[in-house]
């Protein structure tokens, strides 16, 4: 049985090669060539696409993508950790309901929710109407970086809270009681016991927020008003507007490599703590 059952995976092995490995190799191939994609014989090997990335303009975009993603990730952690902590202390009876209503927004369409922020933040949107009605000066958040960061925090906050909550809810209560018995107060218990135990949750939360944040092009497009270009926007433009697949592919490969490096660093931090590296929710 053991030997026969593995044949069940063979069709998927073929599928993986066709739809996962080959497409990525194609992107790598296009990133290393120049010429007309419609005419394969015109393609020549070149590193120019990668050289172009090192233009100051593009480097700035990449830097900004990382900066905004890091800021949003930190904000999500600061805002989200207490949420996870609070939800984990709620009485079992109400916990499900609170948790459920925390999850409802992610079940609504991501684009719709981001679009809704446009109605709230735009120059004649909800917030500014409220402010001018109260006789206060209006804000010009959107379009701009603040709006993009806000949109990222809004969309990715649940992905920070869920893994932390999952780890918190699995902590053995007797460990906390032991800490209390040994004379630790609530603050000490938190810093010395709870916080270290939730590191794996924090790490997977960070990766789950950082990765979509650094590669998004929708949030920056809608809330940045097309002015706040991120690497995701650059890639999208190369494929849909500029039709420069070679440069777009080079940018994608660079994005991939940078994310892989960040995740390798992250999993190294986590390794010190024991557990494996899979997302935990």
């Amino acid at each position, binding site marked *: 049985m053991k030997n026969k059952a593995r044949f069940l995976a063979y069709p998927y092995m073929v599928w993986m090669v066709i739809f996962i490995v080959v497409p990525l190799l*194609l992107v790598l191939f296009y990133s290393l060539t120049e010429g007309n994609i419609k005419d394969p014989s015109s393609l020549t090997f070149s590193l120019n696409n990668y050289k172009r990335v090192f233009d100051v303009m593009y480097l700035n975009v990449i830097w900004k993508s990382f900066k905004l993603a890091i800021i949003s990730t930190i904000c999500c952690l600061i805002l989200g950790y207490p949420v996870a902590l609070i939800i984990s202390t709620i009485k079992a009876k109400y916990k499900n309901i609170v948790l459920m209503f925390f999850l409802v927004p992610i079940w*609504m369409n991501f684009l719709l929710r981001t679009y*809704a922020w446009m109605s709230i933040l735009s120059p004649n949107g909800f917030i500014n109407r409220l402010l001018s009605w109260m006789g206060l000066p209006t804000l010009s958040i959107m379009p701009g970086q603040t709006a993009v960061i806000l949109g990222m925090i809004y969309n990715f906050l649940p992905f920070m809270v869920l893994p932390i909550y999952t780890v918190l809810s699995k902590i053995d209560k007797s460990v906390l009681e032991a800490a209390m018995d040994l004379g630790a107060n609530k603050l000490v218990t938190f810093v010395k016991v709870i916080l270290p135990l939730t590191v794996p949750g924090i790490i997977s939360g960070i990766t789950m927020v950082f990765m979509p944040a650094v590669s998004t092009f929708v949030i920056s497009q809608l809330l940045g008003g097309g002015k706040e270009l991120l690497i995701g926007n650059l890639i999208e433009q190369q494929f849909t507007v500029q039709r420069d697949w070679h440069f777009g592919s080079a940018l994608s490969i660079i994005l991939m490599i940078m994310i892989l490096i960040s995740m390798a660093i992250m999993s190294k931090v986590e390794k010190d703590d024991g557990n494996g590296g899979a*997302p935990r929710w």
Partner: protein
Amino acid sequence: MVKFLKRFYLTLIFIFLYAPIAVLIVYSFNESKSRGYWGGFTFKWYAELFRDRDIIKALYYTFLVALLSSIISTVIGTFSAIGIHNMGLFGKKLALNINYLPVLNPDIVTGIALMTLFISVNMRLGFLTMLISHTVFNIPYVILSVMPKLKQMDKNMTEAALDLGATPSYALRKVIIPQIMPGVITGALIAFTLSIDDFVISFFTTGSGVTNLSILVYSMAKRGVKPSINALTTLMLLTVVILLLLINKRTTKGDELIP
């Protein structure tokens, strides 16, 4: 005091989470078409919603693709997970690592990579390419949720079944599948949710005439979204809340809500 602070903080977070949804709901009853102006209460956008062919078509494709791709990926994913589970150490590691790629890769890279593949082999972008792409990114999640259940399963069970005269396929149907069912259901649910909410991968892998809800909203957002979309949001919220309340009533353990 601490209790008050906790409640206050949680309330603030909930206001933040629901503010945009509340705004859309309020606007869905707004007589005026303009977003910033209240022209009185109306139900007309709800009536318009059901007459809007673009929205109905987008909804149709959203659900069709989500349904088909989650069924296909659950079937392929479950069998593949059983297969991978029974592979040698090296093959298992290799398969799982490649399987991880679509999970680890940013959506946009998966999207353009698949688009590149389809265009390179001269496949016309449209319904089929979108369905394949959704299946490609769904299968890994199904495998990832089935694998832990396979690991938990007692190995002797299958052997006992075989010793008692069950054929391998009978053992698969009557012993293995029932035991890993919770993982399979979680996988199917994740697949369905991911598919229904997807924008980036669909955006790159679909062609003219085939749009899902996300693509429709994206293309509308620049020119101004039709108010009937707000009506749709309200109905969606209502459906999700009712469904979740029903599920919540049936399950006693809340942790199951999280896949």
